[in-house]
């Protein structure tokens, strides 16, 4: 019988005694490298798919609201925005809810901004790091994570039942400002901490007091990032439903004074969606809400980008 491997054996003899080991090792190394590359590619693929799913989820939601909401607005173009809803089906426009939303958000910003910015100034510039600062930080973090329904019930129990403020723009703005407080505080504190130290030294070197330094040097420098935080907090307030529901009510009304009640866009959308009576208006309202949030986010980004270019 012919020896099938005679030739190989001859070659092995020529190559030396550990050639076999070498070949095996080489083969194993290649196999491992292949496995590693395969695992690497598979893992990277999984990561990209996850990112893809996230972006897709956003795209689906935006497209869905856009496709259904655009006709609802377009078919009654200016009137959907600028007329009142009427009848049991809330047919017609959503003008009072837009005004109420803007009113309450502006009022909440007016209340929250000075307190939050000054609180952040305290934390970043004045406070000695210690127990009090730890407590304040913990409180701010907790405030940021309070479920919105709890905040709503608190607003009801505190501002309306204990302080006898009627369900109004004012009570809702007060409750919302508590919600925005930690967001603005964190953004401002980070902005202030990002101000380079030598700029402060320059100001002190010229004899400025602490407050003069903060007001004329630190805050202007930190302003773009503070504004970004404000814009994001604004978006949060506009979309908030539960808090507004319990502190402002749901009466469709055109607010004039801060003690007037009203219904925000988010609450309006909730009522329409739950009752399922006028989905067309619901889509339209959802679209306007989304567009506003989208614009605010874009604005925040634009401010950040511009700021990065300048410095």
């Amino acid at each position, binding site marked *: 019988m012919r020896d099938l491997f005679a030739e190989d054996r001859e070659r092995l003899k020529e190559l030396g005694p550990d050639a076999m080991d070498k070949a095996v090792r080489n083969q194993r190394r290649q196999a491992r490298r292949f496995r590693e*590359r395969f695992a*690497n590619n598979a893992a990277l693929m999984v990561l990209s798919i996850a990112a893809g799913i996230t972006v897709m989820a956003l795209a689906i939601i935006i497209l869905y609201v856009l496709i259904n909401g655009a006709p609802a607005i377009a078919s009654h173009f200016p009137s959907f925005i600028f007329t009142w809803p009427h009848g049991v089906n809330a047919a017609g426009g959503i003008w009072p809810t837009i005004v109420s939303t803007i009113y309450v958000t502006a009022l909440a910003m007016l209340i929250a901004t000075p*307190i939050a910015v000054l609180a952040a100034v*305290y934390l970043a510039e004045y406070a000695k790091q210690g127990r009090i600062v730890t407590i*304040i930080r913990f*409180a701010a973090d907790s405030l940021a994570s309070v479920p919105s*329904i709890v905040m709503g019930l*608190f607003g009801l129990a505190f501002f309306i039942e204990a302080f006898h403020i009627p369900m109004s723009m004012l009570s809702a703005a007060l409750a919302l400002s508590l919600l925005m407080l930690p967001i603005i505080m964190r953004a401002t504190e980070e902005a202030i901490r990002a101000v380079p130290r030598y700029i402060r030294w320059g100001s002190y070197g010229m004899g400025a007091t602490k407050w003069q330094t903060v007001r004329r040097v630190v805050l202007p420098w930190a302003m773009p990032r503070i504004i970004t935080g404000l814009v994001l907090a604004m978006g949060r307030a506009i979309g908030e439903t539960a808090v507004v529901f319990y502190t402002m009510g749901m009466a469709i009304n055109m607010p004039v004074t801060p003690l007037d009640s009203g219904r925000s866009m988010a609450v309006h959308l909730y009522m329409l969606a739950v009752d399922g009576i006028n989905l067309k208006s619901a889509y339209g309202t959802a679209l306007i809400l989304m567009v506003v949030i989208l614009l605010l986010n874009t604005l925040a980004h634009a401010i950040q980008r511009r700021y990065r270019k300048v410095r």
Partner: protein
Amino acid sequence: MTPSVTLRTPDKAPTAVPQQHKKAELTLVSRSTQIKERALSLLFFLCAIVAVLGVVLIFAFVAVRAVPLFKQIGFLNFIAGTKWSVANSQFGVVPFIVGSVVVTAGALAIGAPLAILTALFLSEIAGPRARAVIRPAVELLAGIPSVVYGFFGVTVVAPLVGRMFGGAGFGPLTAWIVLSIMIVPTISMLSEDALDSIPMGIREASFAMGATQWQTIYKVVLPAAKIGIIDATILGMGRAIGETMAVLMIVGNAPQMFAGLTKPIATLTSQIVLGMSYATPGAFQTALFGMAALLFIISMGLVLTVRILSRGKRGTYDA
């Protein structure tokens, strides 16, 4: 705090009357300036205390309202009671706690991996162009109001789930799908912060030893960012437990024990809203406030957990 000797600058802008410039000489800071500085720093302190005050007031006004109930039916019957029946004055919240746990656990099981993988992609793999698309998308997901998510759940996800599994489609499964998308931005953005704070050097060291990208991620980057990612997941959990409007709209709102993925249930948050719409002052309303207090304690507990976890982390990579 205030340096005792500073150059006194005029308070007015340089456009002021020239006479005032004469005053810009080296003097002790005037008493009035010192008082002003003190007063201001006190004012700032008071502003910072508002946050603490807010938390204390929220807890006081929500929890105090619940106290009469505990006197009436006993704390144990509230927290461990399994029957919720307003007509029989039975206010056991176990069904809602179970509902919240089921909804949150499912949302986390889907949402957390998705979010962490997205964060890894953004921080470790994506080029600038991919990042410029994906990161704003994630931020935008965070900005979409929860009522819009709920609306999407009602009009799209619930009918879809209903068609596939029977029933109306309102239940934990629908809530999982919607909530998991809602918590992705929270977890993803915070995880990415944690990943970005890891110094580039340890990645380079890993690559230099011949590790592949995945080996570097799995054996070097992930362990280094572990605590940050756990923190992010806990905060995402807080978001899921506290989520109100979206859950209310899609979970079915039946005050009964969890019986199946497509059977309607209620969570702590949804039951509060539902109950408040027809609760009259009395035991019923106090029970709802008791549930709100419970939610508040849970969310504070989660924040506290994060604080304690991150305390050990601080200083590890601060070079």
